[in-house]
């Protein structure tokens, strides 16, 4: 009895079969072949379903290597990493195999608590390895991987295009003997947002046991594409003429209310051209937030409907003068900023810590009361800046952050050497 899901059944066995990221896989193949003790580890990164793990197994298959894998389903604290990955990386492979890859999969999944010290152990394994160590991650720029990155060569995996995905889906249909409308495959591919695995899963869910696949069968699939869903919700909400329509719009959202509120907040000013409308809409949102605060504090979830109505109907009905118009909705900029500035903020915090140590103050105060002045000094007087950098023991990265422009930071760094 076959019980292999299609994602596995049709998984590529050779590097050349990897869709879209063939080059990345080739690079991996080359690095593994050329690897010798002392070489760096290899970090594959990119969104889910772009073929990272599959590449490793394809490479191993082509080279007749064995793969020793640790992933997020394993406890990866210091002891376990050393015991499993560590010993695998130190020993010779089975005699039947020509080599071995140690795969540490999904390092995003390292748990702060349960996997304490795991990251340090992984670095140790890489440094002392006698076989290639390959890692995968969705987001390699996570600051906790900063030092890990120094011990790895990075290979990027890109999202697949819709056409890449359609092509694969069509070939699977052929093999399964299913006649599928092109439109359906396109829809599934679009919905998958460049994630091949999820597209194949959706295809199997829809087509398993069918001979023909038509567009009408798509209804039960939930949108994976959250943005598209939220765009529709926002459009419905902001165009609502009645309280009921507005609250209904909200009820169709597939994101939680915190996120929803951020989306609404972000896009209010694009619909409310009149400041009175703007103020009214925000007032409603602010009242909705007050209810959320009460809910959180008292765990009184029965108040949730009031918050929903205020953030939907309260906002929508504030628009009395401006005409409804088509708006290209933006992702909540606060969240975007928070994400994109994470590295900068971490650096800032490190700088703050150093100032704190020297100046007997708190990190927040260091950043607010000292940093602006230090920045001025660094920019306008590199010589003084260099002397201060020495006193504070700022490293080059931190100096570059403080000055914020490369000219003066280079100058300071030169003076320091």
């Amino acid at each position: 009895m076959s019980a292999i899901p299609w994602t596995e059944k049709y998984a590529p066995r050779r590097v050349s079969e990897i869709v879209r990221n063939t080059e990345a896989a080739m690079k991996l193949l080359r690095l593994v072949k050329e690897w010798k003790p002392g070489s760096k580890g290899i970090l594959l990164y990119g969104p889910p379903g772009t073929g990272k793990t599959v590449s490793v197994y394809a490479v191993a298959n082509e080279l007749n290597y064995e793969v020793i894998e640790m992933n997020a389903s394993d406890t990866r604290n210091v002891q376990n990493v050393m015991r499993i990955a560590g010993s695998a990386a130190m020993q010779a492979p089975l005699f039947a195999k020509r080599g071995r890859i140690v795969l540490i999969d999904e390092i995003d999944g390292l748990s702060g608590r349960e996997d304490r010290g795991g990251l340090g152990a992984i670095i140790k394994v890489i440094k002392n390895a006698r076989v290639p160590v390959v890692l995968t991650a969705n987001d390699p720029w996570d600051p906790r991987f900063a030092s890990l990155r120094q011990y790895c060569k990075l290979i990027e995996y890109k999202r697949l295009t819709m056409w890449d995905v359609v092509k694969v889906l069509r070939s699977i249909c052929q093999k399964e003997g299913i006649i599928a409308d092109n439109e359906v495959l396109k829809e599934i591919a679009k919905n998958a947002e460049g994630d091949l695995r999820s597209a194949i899963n959706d295809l199997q869910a829809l087509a398993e046991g069918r001979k023909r696949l038509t567009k009408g069968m798509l209804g039960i699939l939930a949108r994976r594409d959250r943005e598209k869903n939220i765009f529709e919700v926002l459009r419905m909400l902001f165009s609502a003429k009645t309280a009921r329509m507005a609250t209904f719009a909200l009820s169709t959202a597939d994101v939680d209310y915190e996120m929803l509120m951020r989306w609404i907040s972000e896009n209010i000013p694009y619909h409310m051209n009149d400041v009175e409308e703007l103020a009214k809409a925000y007032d409603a949102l602010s009242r909705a937030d007050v209810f959320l605060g009460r809910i959180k504090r008292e765990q009184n979830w029965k108040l949730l409907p009031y918050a929903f109505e205020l953030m939907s109907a309260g906002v929508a009905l504030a628009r009395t003068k401006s005409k409804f118009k088509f708006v290209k909705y933006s992702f909540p900029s606060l969240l975007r900023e928070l994400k994109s500035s994470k590295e900068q903020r971490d650096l800032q915090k490190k700088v703050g810590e150093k100032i704190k140590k020297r100046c007997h103050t708190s990190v927040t105060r260091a950043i607010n009361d000292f940093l602006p002045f230090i920045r001025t000094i660094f920019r306008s007087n590199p010589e003084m800046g260099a002397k201060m950098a020495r006193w504070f023991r700022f490293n080059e990265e931190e100096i570059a952050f403080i000055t914020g422009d490369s000219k003066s930071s280079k100058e300071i760094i030169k003076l320091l050497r």
Partner: protein
Amino acid sequence: MSEMMWTEKYRPRTLDEIVNQEEIVSRLKHFVKTKDFPHLLFAGPPGTGKTTAILAFARDLFGKYFEENFLELNASDERGIDIIRTRVKDFARTRAIGDVPVKIIALDEADNMTADAQQALRRTMEKYTRTARFCLICNYSSKIIEPIQSRCAVFRFSPLKDEDIAKRLKWIAEQEDVNLTEDGVQAILYVAEGDMRRAINILQAASALGTTVNSETVYKVTGRARPEEVREMINLALSGKFIEARKKLYELLITYGLSGSDIVRQIHREIYNLNIPEEWKVKLAEYTGDIDFRLSEGAHEDIQLSALLAHFALAGTQMRKGDKIG
């Protein structure tokens, strides 16, 4: 008297018995036939039959081997990263028992699992594809991390339609020899608010009072006021007859044995049925929410409910004057 709960008695055992979510059911039936299917992610509001569906699917699939091959972890079980790394893995790595292709592991309220635990799940799902499939059940699929979503076929359960619930209620009434009137059905639908389980419970409770279940018995057993009466009270207030509205309020509280927060919630529901300008509806709902909150904080019921009606009366005056909302 030692009667069974009707919600259990009439819970569908097999996919054939499920009357809603037709498309999803038909997909699941296909899977039973081919015995081949991907990981599943069921998303949708409470009371839409997600758990019923996975149970029925597993029963149809496994037959007499159901117990051995089905593992259910629900919200009250510990589902931290430890359990995923131990118990789930232990269950998933051994072969299915009997003539079935794989085991099924259902994780209820998966959106409440920690991110860590979800992370631990992702490779487990892949590693044991030969022996097990996962079915994650949640309200919002967006709370499931992307790598897991990517590994599942996502099914969305839509809220039940009132007519579907009505149909079910009538069918059960027939089975139980209960005379369920049309206004009784409507009353149950009003109180149940789209939740099938609740609707059936109400039917059972009301039928305990006698063999006929009509709107009167329903409102009596559920401790709800008739929506018409609530609306009447609100309209009295809005038209400026504050004292009469208060009288009506006390009447409702006494007749139906309502608590302050019960009546506040019924008022809240009726606001949107009122024949007043839309923006006023929001405004009134907002104030109603404040009163609801105050009651939960321990303010006095009579004073707060009077304040609520007073607010409606003032709003009514402003509406008649055509004032803007201030």
